[in-house]
């Protein structure tokens, strides 16, 4: 009998936190041991609506629960938002590759997040804070459209306390906003580090990733130290359904994390 990797297991929602108008953080009770890495994803499902790939926002080995931040955009995420604490989510995973942390050992790290790209980076940041002594100085540039869409305003002070240099920026500011404005790439030069020795982790919309990679590369950051995470439509999570194709790759099994070196070598090569 072959293990049925398509069969989901049931988990109960213990708590739901509203992070912004249409983003909620779902905390799930785990009745089994699951090891996962930052940027890995699970398929979360609701009967009748289907499944979506969601990357983990919590940190394995630190948190006794598992958390997912979900923005309401489509059918399945809409159904997930209908759920209340105590109700069940059907899940499979973890799938995909997590961020490679070994190459970051001994280096300064720049995290760049756009919009809900902060969710997988939150998992990463908390993971790195657990092993703080392996790494150099830490920087976070986090951009979102409006101040009201900025997530984890309660956790960002904790990160600052832990010694992370945090730069917050919004596209459209309101009366109360005291931080920066503009896209994330405009603030890269506020980071005082040797870009040729540092490494970076970037999550967000594809255009933002593209621009950030370009800017970091221009400042001399080596290709293999620029880490990104891509997003695609996925149905199986295990490299069968084909929906997450990107050139030769299936993002679900070969990604979702790539270095800029991988992108140049494996994806951009064929341009299709």
């Amino acid at each position, binding site marked *: 009998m072959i293990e049925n990797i398509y069969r989901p297991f049931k988990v109960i929602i213990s708590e739901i936190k509203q992070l912004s108008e249409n983003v909620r953080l779902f905390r799930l009770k785990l009745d089994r041991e699951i090891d996962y890495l930052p940027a890995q994803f699970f398929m979360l499902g609701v009967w009748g609506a289907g499944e979506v790939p969601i990357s983990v926002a919590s940190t394995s080995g630190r948190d006794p629960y598992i958390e997912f931040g979900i923005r309401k955009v489509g059918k399945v995420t809409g159904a997930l938002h209908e759920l209340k604490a105590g109700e069940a989510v059907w899940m499979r995973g973890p799938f995909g590759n997590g961020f490679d942390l070994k190459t970051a050992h001994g280096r300064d790290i720049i995290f760049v997040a756009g919009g809900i790209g902060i969710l997988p980076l939150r998992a990463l940041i908390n993971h790195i804070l657990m092993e703080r002594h392996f790494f150099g100085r830490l920087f976070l540039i986090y951009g979102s459209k409006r101040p009201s869409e900025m997530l984890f305003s309660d956790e960002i002070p904790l990160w600052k306390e832990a010694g992370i240099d945090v730069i917050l920026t919004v596209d459209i500011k309101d009366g109360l906003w005291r931080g920066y404005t503009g896209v994330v790439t405009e603030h890269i030069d506020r980071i005082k580090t040797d870009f040729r020795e540092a490494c970076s982790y970037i999550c967000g919309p594809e255009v933002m990733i593209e621009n950030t990679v370009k800017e970091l590369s221009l400042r001399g950051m080596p290709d293999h130290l620029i880490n990104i995470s891509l997003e695609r439509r996925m149905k199986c999570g295990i490299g069968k*359904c084909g929906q997450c194709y990107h050139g030769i790759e299936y993002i679900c099994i070969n990604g979702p994390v790539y270095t800029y070196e991988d992108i140049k070598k494996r994806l951009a090569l064929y341009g299709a």
Partner: protein
Amino acid sequence: MIERFILDKNDLSYWLRQIRKNASLIAPVKSLVGDVVFESLEQIHEISLDHPLPPPSVKEFLFPQIETMFEYNGDEIKEIIDEEMRVVVGLRSCDASAIKIIDRFFAGETGSDYDMVHPNRKYKDPYYFSRRQNTVFISMGCNVPGAVCFCYNLGAGPFLDSGFDIQLIDLEDRYLVEADSEKGKGLVRRYDYLFRKVETGDLEDRFEALLSSISKFEKRIDLRETGQKIKNSMPDSFWQWVAERCFECGGCVYVCSLCTCFNIVDYNFSNQSGKRCRIWDTCLFKGFTEMAGRVIPQEKKEQRLKRWWFHKILYYPEQFKTFGCVGCGRCTITCPGHIDIATLSEKIMGWR
């Protein structure tokens, strides 16, 4: 080690009848208006082996067009695993070659050094393999290739050297029966009284039939050269030209014996109960890559078409060391826009 036997043509129906006692027998049957389709064989004499290639490929017996994965009812999940014994007879070498390749795909092992780079690929598909384990394919070598066939150029026919369950080769008054897999050998050994040993003359006749078949191919398609050309020198205007001729009907993908993309959908019976199914899908549809919020990574038709070609002609060789095409020519028959593999490949070689 391939085992070879001779079966008198008069005894084929007896053999099939014995096989049918333990398994459902699927074979090409001619419908009333002349279409040949694979069906469960009711009357043994209805089998139609001297036909052109049946339009649907046999992949549907391993990977059906729509398949229930499991039924759910609140907390309960009932897996629907198909374990029916099947013997499919009368498929052609191209289809048998295709099965060899999709076996590797669904096993998550390309069998090349690609696996070493991407160890994460090794997920085995339970639905595909429960069927595969219980299915024996008895394929036919082609003595007379069809007008659209080019399997010979891809090493996928007209006869196969290995990797099949059972291969029948028509030697006019008798069949040369070649069994390669254990399942195939079992199906011959169990009825050994029907078969006689192979003699030198039989193998000479096989060779003669092969030479004669090869000489009859009308198409010459070199996908290696086509691949080099699309990789290096086909302009965007070419893909634009192709896109103008693509109706997005998905026909090429549905008839292709190697295309395996699917979608997973839920059908609810009630609020908490229903079934989760997978259905064939095609990367040529715009919605295939559509993410929530109408973000479509491959929005342009020419991008999608280009990627389909790249996948079949460049990516497959890189991963599986074989083309994503077995030269069956089904897309040539199906494509309304005349941009199937063979026709477009010729077009590409002539494009300046």
